[in-house]
């Protein structure tokens, strides 16, 4: 008996398009997603500056004065302005995404997205007012 025929399964001649390096410029939402991911860099830079501040503080008044003087130079002011914009963008996108990540259920019904986001924004506003009060009081 001859061995059974071996078939090569038919395989179509596919066309696969490579994803462009510039895919994130294709739509506004892809671009805002990439910008949102980039905000983490600025958050990290800001954290490093804070660590640096703590170090200066630990080294005494003279070191801290030098640190403060350095913060007032144009490159640092520009960096902080840019970091501020990115951190605000980070916060807004984060709060808008919160209801998606947390499906809060109350009495068996899902709490509407607007309420979850609204509570986050409310907490943000409240804490900002508290911080502003502490800073501006003195």
């Amino acid at each position: 008996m001859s061995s059974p025929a071996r078939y090569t399964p038919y395989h179509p001649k596919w066309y696969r398009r490579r994803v462009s390096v510039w895919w994130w410029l294709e739509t506004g939402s892809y671009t805002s997603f990439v910008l949102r991911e980039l905000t983490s860099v600025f958050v990290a830079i800001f954290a490093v500056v804070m660590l640096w501040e703590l170090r200066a503080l630990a080294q005494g008044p003279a070191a801290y004065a030098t640190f403060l003087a350095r913060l007032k130079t144009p490159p640092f002011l520009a960096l902080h302005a840019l970091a501020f914009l990115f951190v605000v963008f980070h916060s807004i996108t984060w709060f808008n995404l919160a209801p998606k990540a947390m499906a809060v259920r109350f009495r068996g019904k899902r709490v509407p997205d607007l309420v979850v986001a609204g509570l986050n924004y409310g907490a943000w506003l409240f804490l900002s007012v508290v911080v502003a009060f502490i800073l501006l009081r003195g």
Partner: protein
Amino acid sequence: MPQTVTLEVARYRPEREAEPIIETYEVPFRKDWVVLDALNHIKDKLDGTLSFRWSCRMGVCGSCGMTVNGRPKLTCAAFLSDHLPGPIRVEPLRYFPVVRDLVVDITDFMRKLKKVKPWIIRKEEKPLSEGEYRQTPDELDAYKQFSMCINCMICYSACPIYGLEPTFIGPAAIALAQRYNRDSRDQGAGERLEILSEHDGIWQCTFVGECTKVCPKNVDPAGAIQQYKLTSALHWVRTLLPRG
């Protein structure tokens, strides 16, 4: 209102072209026509060689997903009147290999879908004499949204992560896994956890959120994935605890 509208349709005939080309067709404009009607007009009257998938014409079968003017859509729900003055560009779903014209190969999705075990898993079936598995409206509500998925793969076509990392299980498969995880009759969450929590599962997702925006059935796959990340992280924390 225009008499006709121009359709720019991607053609790929592997025996003729090395890569897709665009062919232009002039179709009559009718207020009640969707892109799928225009494609059927082309196939019937202008060029019978055009290939595309379709079936139900009413957003149930999930066959006619294509890229319309750069956005993935069900062509049966994409009205010509919403895309005036044209030209309207119709291309196959992005990130899938093109077999011919507007037809893509969906094997990858079918394999991934099966992998997440989208069916009710019972450790032990209760005897028939005990009757059916009952659910309250709230228990139904817990998974109903995810059960609306029609497997149209539009979410995959909107997901740049799937484009860049084709091994990613992807939005619809994860949403469907969640559909069964949240079903009060199901006991298979543990089996699915291993598949969903591995490298190509939920953690590939960086929450672009486009899958949810383009979904024609409001399934919210992005939400399903983020919620599952929380479940998976909590499970991991529990494994660290003694007698976890």
